C-alpha cells in the first residue's frame, strides 16, 4: 500500500521534473539559435533558400484558404448585417475580421501544418541519417548552419503569408458581397478605408503574425532536433509539432488580443 502510494508520487515527481527539464532544454535551444544567427544574415542566401521552402511553397494553400475564408465571411456577414439594414458595412466587417484575427491565426495554423511539419520531419531525418553528426564532425555548427536560417525564414515568411491571406480574403469577401450579392461597391470600399486603422488593426495583425511565426518555427525546429533518430521518433515529433504549435498559436492569440484590443 505504502509502496504504491510513494510509487504514484514518484511518478508525478518524475513527470514534473521531466517537463521542467524539457522546457529548460527548449529554452536553451531557442536562445542558442538566436545567439548563433549571425550566419543567417551574413549569408542571407541560406535564409532565402529556406524562405522559398517554407514561405513560397506555402503560398498556394494560403491563397486558396484565404479566398475561401473571405468568401464565407462575405456570405455570413451579409446574412447578419442585412438584418440590421447595414449590409454596406460588409467591407468593414470582412477587413477587420481578417486583419485582426483570421489572417494571422488561420495562416499560422496552416503554416504549422504545411511548413512546420516539413521542418520537423526534415531535421529529424537529417539527424536519423547522421547528417547532423556529420556536420558536427566537419567542425560546422548545425545550429547556426541548419537551424538558424530556417528559424529566420519562418519569422520572415509568416507575416508576409498572413498579409497575403488577408488581402486575398478581402477580395473573396468582395467577390461574394459586391459581385454576387450586389452590395454597393463604393460603400464597400470607402467604409472599409474609413474604418480600418493602420496602427490599431493592421500593425497589430502584423505583430501577431510575427509572434506566431517565432512560436511555430521554434517549436518545429526544436521537435525535429530533439526527435529520437528513428522512424517512429520522427513521426511522433511531426505530430507534436502540429499539435503543440497550433495550441500555442491559439493561446498566444488570446493573450495578444487581450493586450491589443482592450477598450
Amino acid at each position, binding site marked *: 500500500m505504502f509502496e504504491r502510494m510513494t510509487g504514484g508520487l514518484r511518478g508525478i515527481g518524475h513527470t514534473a521534473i521531466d517537463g521542467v527539464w524539457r522546457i529548460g532544454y527548449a529554452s536553451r535551444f531557442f536562445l542558442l539559435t538566436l545567439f548563433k544567427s549571425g550566419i543567417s544574415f551574413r549569408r542571407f542566401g541560406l535564409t532565402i533558400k529556406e524562405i522559398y521552402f517554407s514561405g513560397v511553397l506555402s503560398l498556394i494553400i494560403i491563397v486558396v484558404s484565404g479566398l475561401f475564408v473571405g468568401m464565407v465571411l462575405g456570405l455570413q456577414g451579409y446574412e447578419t448585417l442585412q438584418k440590421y439594414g447595414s449590409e454596406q458595412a460588409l467591407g468593414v466587417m470582412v477587413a477587420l475580421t481578417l486583419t485582426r484575427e483570421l489572417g494571422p491565426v488561420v495562416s499560422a495554423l496552416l503554416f504549422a501544418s504545411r511548413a512546420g511539419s516539413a521542418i520537423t520531419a526534415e531535421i529529424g*531525418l*537529417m539527424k536519423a*541519417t*547522421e*547528417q547532423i*553528426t*556529420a556536420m*558536427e*564532425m*566537419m*567542425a*560546422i*555548427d548545425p545550429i547556426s*548552419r541548419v537551424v538558424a536560417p530556417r528559424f529566420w525564414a519562418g519569422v520572415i515568411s509568416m507575416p508576409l503569408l498572413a498579409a497575403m491571406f488577408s488581402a486575398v480574403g478581402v477580395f473573396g469577401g468582395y467577390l461574394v458581397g459586391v459581385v454576387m450579392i450586389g452590395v454597393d461597391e463604393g460603400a464597400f470600399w470607402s467604409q472599409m478605408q474609413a474604418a480600418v486603422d493602420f496602427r490599431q488593426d493592421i500593425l497589430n495583425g502584423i505583430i501577431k503574425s510575427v509572434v506566431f511565426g517565432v512560436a511555430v518555427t521554434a517549436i518545429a525546429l526544436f521537435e525535429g532536433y530533439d526527435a529520437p533518430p528513428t522512424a517512429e521518433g520522427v513521426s511522433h515529433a511531426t505530430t507534436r509539432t502540429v499539435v503543440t504549435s497550433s495550441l500555442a498559436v491559439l493561446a498566444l492569440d488570446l493573450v495578444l488580443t487581450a493586450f491589443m484590443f482592450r477598450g
Partner: protein
Amino acid sequence: MSKDNLVEINNVSFGYNKRPVLKGINMAIPRGRVVAIMGGSGCGKTTLLRLIGGQIKPQQGEVRVAGQVVHELDREELYKMRRRMGMLFQFGALFTDMSVFDNVAFQMREHTDLPEAVIRDLVLLKLHAVGLRGARDLMPSELSGGMARRVALARAVALDPMLIMYDEPFAGLDPISLGVIGNLIRRLNDALGVTSIVVTHDVHESLQIVDYVYFVSEGVIVAHGTPEEMRQSAKPFVHQFVHGEMDGPVPFHYAGEDYGADLGLGHV
C-alpha cells in the same frame, strides 16, 4: 606519448547510463597506417570513434590526437582539430538536399575563402579519385549504396585531413563495391599520407587492406596484431571471429535457463 602515434587511447572507460561499453582500453594508432578495430555488433567500436572525434567524453582515461587530449579541448580548439579529421559514416550521411558536387564542396565553402573556380577543380579532383567525376550533378537519392559511400569518401578527404575514420565502411555493400571501397581506403591512405582507422566487422575485406588489427569484445581488447598474426591466432575469440563460426566464446544461445528445464524435462 610517442611521436610516431597519431592517436593514443590510454586506459579509456566509457558507459551509457550505467551500462559499461568500454573498460580500460589502450590503443595506439601509428601515423601513416591503416588500423582496423574489429568486433561484434554493439561491442563499443563506434563509441571509440566518437571518443576520438570528441563527440563524447571518456569517464576515465584520455584520448590523445596529435598530442592533444581531446576531452580537454574547448569548443573552438575541438572544431579546429575536427577540420583535420575526415569521417565516413556508416551509410554515408550525405546531405540529401545537395548534389554530389555540393556535398564534396561543402566544407571548402564553409571553411575556406577559395574562389569558386578553385573549389570546382578541387572537387573534381576528389571525385575523380573515387571514380565519380561524371556523377557530380546527381542527387544523393539517385546514387546506389556503393556510390554514396564513395561520394562520402570524397567528402571526407575534401580538406586533406590527417586522420580519416571509417565507421563500418563495408556494411550493406555488394562484393564489387566492397572491393572498390576497400581498395580506395588503402590507396587514399598511401597517396595522401594520412592515417586511417577502420571500424568494421567485415573480416575478409579488412584483413586484406589493413596494417594492424585490434579485436574488441565486451569492452576490452582481446587481441591485436598484424593481419597475418590474426589469421594464425589460436585465441578462441579471434578464431571464431575470423572464421565466422557459429558457436565459441561468443555463444549462439542468449543466456537463459537450461533447455531441458525450460521444456519441463528436468536436466538433459
